[in-house]
């Protein structure tokens, strides 16, 4: 209480500095509280209530948790999400790293800028538009991909219509959309590594592969951890691309947790059940992020 009062009525230079610091971060804190924290708290509270919008709410304790967490459809959606995530995240991170390394080696700044912009372009496209573009590419009858396969004598594939192919096909869309963003992060990090390190490594007789393994990758560790976390979050929350292309089909094979959450809230009007799913997503992502942060984060000093 005493400290709070000193912020309101500072007595020393240090107090004034603290107050200035607080005022600088205050807009961000208020924004975060209003836009993120308040809905989160509301979701947590909502998960204990059976809510009928426009009607009355009833406290039901943990009943909705029991109901949702024992529902096979929910776990199927979780399984689909994890499977999609396992296909998308490693592929995106590894490909982005490879592309960034390739771009970093380009001597011409103009060529590098053009290529970087081309890789980044899909990231600037709306997810729904990207999904529709790919839906056309995947069309079994008129799609570009089957046309190409046909030219090579390969029979057409049922990209989004097959139980086995639908998730890999959606993973390709996600990789395409996210690749540019991750590439930019890696490229910026690569450009920040002093060239002297590579010169020293070269003098010590390190091969290119050794330089990559012993120098580049360890120095990129913070970016790799960050990008992996961002990709995990993006892919766990994936909705737009799936909703615009398959709506969770065929036969629920691509229904993700967020899609189920959406349907539960807005098609079945069960806001309490949907809140439980939202809490599940939040807690899962928090745990995975913390674990990843703790396990893989290493201090890096250039």
């Amino acid at each position, binding site marked *: 209480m005493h400290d709070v009062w000193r912020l309101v009525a500072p007595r020393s230079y240090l107090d004034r500095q603290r107050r200035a610091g607080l005022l600088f971060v205050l807009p961000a804190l208020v924004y975060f509280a209003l836009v993120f924290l308040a809905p989160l708290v509301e979701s947590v509270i909502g998960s204990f209530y059976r809510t009928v*919008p*426009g009607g009355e709410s009833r406290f039901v304790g943990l009943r909705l948790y029991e109901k949702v967490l024992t529902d096979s459809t929910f776990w199927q959606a979780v399984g689909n999400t994890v499977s999609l995530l396992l296909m998308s995240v490693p592929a995106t991170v590894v490909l982005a790293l490879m592309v960034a390394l390739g771009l970093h080696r380009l001597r011409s700044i103009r060529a590098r800028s053009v290529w970087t912009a081309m890789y980044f372009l899909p990231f600037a496209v709306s997810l729904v538009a990207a999904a529709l573009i790919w839906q056309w590419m995947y069309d079994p009858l008129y799609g570009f991909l089957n046309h190409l396969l046909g030219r090579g004598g390969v029979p057409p594939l049922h990209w989004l219509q097959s139980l086995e192919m639908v998730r890999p096909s959606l993973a390709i869309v996600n990789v395409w959309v996210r690749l540019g963003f991750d590439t930019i992060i890696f490229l910026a990090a690569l450009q920040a590594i002093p060239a002297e390190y590579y010169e020293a490594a070269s003098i010590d007789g390190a091969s290119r592969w050794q330089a990559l393994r012993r120098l580049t990758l360890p120095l990129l560790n913070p970016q790799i951890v960050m990008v992996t976390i961002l990709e995990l979050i993006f892919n766990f929350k994936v909705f737009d691309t799936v909703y615009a292309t398959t709506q969770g*089909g*065929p*036969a629920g094979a691509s229904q993700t947790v967020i899609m189920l959450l959406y*349907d539960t809230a*807005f*098609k*079945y009007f069960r806001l309490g059940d949907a809140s439980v799913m939202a809490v599940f997503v939040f807690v899962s992502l928090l745990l995975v992020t913390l674990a990843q942060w703790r396990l893989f984060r290493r201090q890096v000093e250039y």
Partner: protein
Amino acid sequence: MRSRIVCAVAVVAATLTLALAPPTAWTQPKKLVFWTHWEQNPEFNKFYETRGKDFAQKSGYEVQVVTVPYQGYEAKYLAALVGKSGAPDIFMGMTHHWCGQYDFCDRMPADLAKTWDDSLPKYMVSVGKWKGVRYGTPIEHGNFQQMYINTETFKKAGLDPDKPPKTLDDWLAAMKKLTVLDAKGEPTQVGFALRHKGHPVGIADKFLPFAHAYGARMLSPNLERATGFANSPEMVAALQFYADLVQKHKVASLVFPTPEDAFGQKRAATIFRESWYFGWVKKNAPEVSFKVYALPCAKACPGAGNLFPWTNMVYKNSASKPAAWDFIRFISNAKDDLDQHQAQGILPVWTANLDSPYVKARPDYQSTQEMLKQPVPPEYYHPKSNELATAFGEAVVAALYGKGQPKPLLDEAAAKMDRALKD
């Protein structure tokens, strides 16, 4: 310095006042906002604005139509209706959802309700009502599936397009003749275009005529139980028949796009759709020559039933409720009913129009009459109909994709539906 600050504050305050002032403070015409998600029927929707101009001369209220994309419309409606701000005065939807599950609807004035009760065909009188009270005006007659056939493909297959199959057995035999496979065994043309994509609710809706033809029903007559109905032997047989169309007989394909497109592209010889599809084909695939017939029967005839009884309702928190009802009253007459539906090529709703020259000249006149004479099939106007139809539709689509046998799939669906009903 101080006076400058005072001036600046005054300017900011004046700007904020102007920006935040409610639109009514301005001299704008008064407006009724109408939300619809019938994006496939733009001419029908435009009619509200056209007649709204006439209504404005009388009342001062113009009508603004907002077409919300069908995909995800529930979320947009719900957000607006719960939030009250930005909500429509009149909106389209299903009465048992918005007035049953929620309490968003204003009760229709008694005189207007009587007008509608007296003007509707008997089978439609329950549409727009919740617990016996009328909230909505039905907007779609012929909202039941009928059989559209491509006459050219029928002729090419050696079938007479004037003698459509009347039973499901005959229909299946015809579908086999109408299916064309390429050298690799892939269909280039199918007999029947079925719904296999999209939300399970729509998939359930398209399967129900087959279920009803087999004498099955999705829920008990009092809509309180699914077990024993959604997984009855009749339903299992119906789903087996439906899945066999894809898996065994290969007269339907999971590769083809939406059924509507497949029919429009002449890749499917038949499709089951509602009366609005007549207008759609005329506009989007005018080169397709087609005829419309009653659906084939088996143990029973599918009859005039639907899963989506669309109506127009007035939002109970609207500040312009009386004007909204006045507008609905303004267009509640046989002439407007005919003009509006004719503009889009849909069947009108009012009984007075069912034998109008426009309706009689339609290709679905005879089939509509025939289907209306059949016993009315089960209705599922339950507040949780979306959730129930989703569970049921998941079983249907799983059978289509060969993910399991109809019986266990339907058992699982029925159990899930019962849980939803009890919850």
